[in-house]
């Protein structure tokens, strides 16, 4: 009986050990050089080099073997260390730790220019000791009798928008997307079964037009650091991975990989803007500390509530589609995301119908007016609720309401197609297993029973993969623009644009996609281990508008709100083929 490719817990649910400095020191002691599945390069054997960096260390290396070097930092003591080097065309990449310390270096050298990029890496630099910190220095390899070169490798947004499938020599397979010059998105196909995508702060450094360096730190997760040089034409990589896995075992290896180019997303910066660091490491006017970078830490900052606390806040404050002034507080309705909300419709006012779901209780409705409805489930008493409705496409109405009295404080976001007699409900609920205020969702498919309307017997809305790989930007209001990247059939990521319209911070969550009509998709995402929000949107690719309903419980209560955005298509990655379930070994 073969095993499945899935982990016991997905990455955002793993309770990574808070390793102490002493534990890390202990785990690093006795470690020589990095492992490598590919033969190490002997390009340096018998040679000595001196790397000079701007505002950083001068490093003198002597390489005795293809896995042993000595290094002196800034003219200091010479120490012996293990290392591993790999080459890719003219580029050499090598990595080593400093014995007895919790730090080391990864270095990329372009032999054609002698320019070098040096990553200083260290543990125990953040409150979570396992999270690797990095500082990047740009410089060159000193050449006797020659002047120092003036050029340098530099941060770039020229890699922005690319996406690759990678297969390392270790056998590890990933999909990696670079929709921002500050963050990146990765799908662990072999390690985690490719269900969800995850995000991490990243660096993108231009060596030349054909080669670049990418880094990623898995902040909020294992803290593991990955860096590699990419040959953009041949789609090959050489790099290093350093960190502790979910079992706290050290991962320290250099690797070589081959990939496939998956596509190119659009960039929205002005032409000519090649800013490589769109998100400043420090606040305006402040000097960034060594290793500083902006990291989105949603798990650290989210409210984590018990069922009793959820019941209490819901009793104290529950609102649906309330004007902001009526519902103040940090978890008030997201009025910011309603700046480009289209007009609501009163089409449902005065109507009554029943929504028959295939695997959930039928819901009867009477619509008193454009904002008030009555619902009842399975013949129980009628309950009044506030709602809002939006006709996204002729005959297709999105409406939502909270279900007062339900033990899990349910909220329904419903798309009803009155031309087809079909309905899909995204049923949000609270009291979920990890944090009670974190929304869960159930998808109900069904039909509309209404006077004068004959629904189909077998046909239903269906889950679809038609959106997978697409990227769509959403402008919710001036200054509030994001981009969705539909990464896997079960997750999406969102990238927040800077004021210069560059991609900035990014995060991701579980998601699903329902096809309503051609070009009309009803989807949700869950901000798990984040703010706990259930976001639902109806994306109309014909009008390039979306309208949606958010459902969120926080310390200030339960809120349902409408949101709407103007959209732009941002491109597509060819990834669907990686999510086909095969007869053995699961996905891929």
């Amino acid at each position, binding site marked *: 009986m073969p095993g499945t490719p899935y982990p016991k817990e997905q990455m955002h649910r793993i309770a990574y050990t808070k390793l102490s400095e002493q534990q890390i020191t202990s785990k690093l002691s006795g470690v020589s050089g990095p492992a490598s599945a590919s033969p190490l390069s002997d390009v340096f054997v018998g040679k000595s080099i001196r790397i000079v960096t701007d505002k950083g260390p001068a490093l003198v290396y002597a390489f005795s073997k293809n896995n042993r070097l000595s290094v002196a930092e800034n003219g200091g003591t010479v120490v012996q260390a293990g290392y591993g080097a790999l080459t890719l065309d003219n580029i050499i990449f090598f990595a080593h730790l400093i014995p007895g310390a919790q730090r080391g270096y990864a270095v990329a050298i372009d032999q054609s220019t002698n320019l070098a990029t040096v990553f200083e890496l260290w543990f125990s630099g953040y409150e979570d000791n396992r999270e690797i910190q990095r500082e990047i220095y740009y410089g060159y390899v000193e050449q006797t009798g020659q002047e120092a070169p003036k050029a340098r490798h530099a941060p770039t947004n020229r890699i922005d928008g690319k996406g690759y499938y990678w297969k390392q020599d270790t056998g590890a397979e990933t999909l990696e997307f670079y929709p921002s010059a500050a963050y990146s998105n990765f799908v662990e196909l072999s390690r985690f079964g490719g269900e969800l995508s995850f995000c991490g702060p990243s660096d993108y450094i231009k060596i030349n037009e054909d080669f670049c360096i990418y880094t990623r730190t898995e902040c909020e997760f294992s803290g593991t650091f990955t860096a590699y040089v990419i040959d953009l034409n041949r789609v090959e990589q050489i790099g290093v991975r350093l960190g502790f896995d979910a079992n706290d075992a050290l991962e320290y290896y250099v690797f070589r990989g081959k990939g496939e180019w998956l596509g190119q997303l659009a960039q929205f910066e002005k032409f000519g803007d090649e800013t490589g660091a769109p998100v400043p490491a420090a606040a305006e006017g402040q000097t960034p500390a060594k290793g500083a970078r902006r990291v989105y830490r949603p798990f650290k900052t989210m409210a984590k509530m018990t069922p009793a606390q959820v019941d209490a806040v819901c009793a104290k404050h529950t609102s649906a589609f309330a004007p902001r002034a009526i519902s103040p507080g*940090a978890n008030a309705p997201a009025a910011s995301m309603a700046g480009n909300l289209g007009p609501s419709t009163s089409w449902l006012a005065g109507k009554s119908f029943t929504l028959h779901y295939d695997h959930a209780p039928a819901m009867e409705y009477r619509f008193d007016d454009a904002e008030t409805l009555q619902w009842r489930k399975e013949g129980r008493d009628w309950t009044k609720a506030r709602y809002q409705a939006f006709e996204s496409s002729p005959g297709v109405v999105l409406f939502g309401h909270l279900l007062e009295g339900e033990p899990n404080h349910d909220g329904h976001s419903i798309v009803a197609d009155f031309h087809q007699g079909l309905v899909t409900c995204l049923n949000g609920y609270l009291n979920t297993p990890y944090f009670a205020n974190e929304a869960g969702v159930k998808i109900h498919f069904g039909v509309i029973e209404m006077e004068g309307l004959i629904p189909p017997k077998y046909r239903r809305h269906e889950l679809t993969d038609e959106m997978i790989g697409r990227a769509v930007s959403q402008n919710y209001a001036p200054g509030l623009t994001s981009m969705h990247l539909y990464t896997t059939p079960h997750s999406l990521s969102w990238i927040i644009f*800077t004021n210069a319209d560059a991609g900035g911070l990014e995060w991701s969550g579980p998601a699903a996609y329902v096809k309503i009509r051609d070009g009309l998709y009803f989807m949700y995402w869950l901000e798990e281990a984040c703010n706990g929000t259930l976001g639902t949107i109806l994306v109309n690719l014909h009008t390039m508008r979306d309208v949606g309903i958010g459902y969120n419980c926080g310390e200030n209560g339960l809120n349902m709100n409408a949101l709407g955005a103007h959209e732009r298509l941002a491109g597509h990655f060819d990834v669907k083929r990686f999510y086909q379930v095969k007869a053995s070994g699961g996905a891929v």
Partner: protein
Amino acid sequence: MNADNASTRRSFLKSGALLAAPLAAVAAPAVIAADDELKARLARLEDEAAVRDLHQSWLRRVNSGAAGAATPFADSKNVALDGSVRSIAADHSAEPDAIEIAADGKSAVGRFPCAVEIERTIPQDCTLAQMAHAQGGGFVRQTERRLLKVEYAKASGAWAIVKAEFALA
């Protein structure tokens, strides 16, 4: 600095008046009246110049984000510009600036067509907005044409801003 300039100008204008007298061949009382008129005019010009200097100095403080942007105000409680104003630039496509000195020389009103850059903070009421703030954004800046109306008062020989407010241009 202002005092030095005033002294120079007064000397120059006085010289001019004296030089002009024989040519005009006016009677003595008329010369005195003309001298008074020139003094009054000079005083107005000096006041206008002082107010303009004060205005420019204040704009520099506003545009540089200087913490003491309120300093030229006679009473800090009357600072009309809220923190949303990021910069104020002269609007040269509009009517010229106008500074009116009151007859008693103790108050003045300035009207300055300008382009005002206003920054609005986006409330952190959703994940998207919270992330925008986390990356150093979370605000919207827009430039609007406005008429900056400023009231001034002179006390102990120095001008100060009493009130500043924007009106639609």
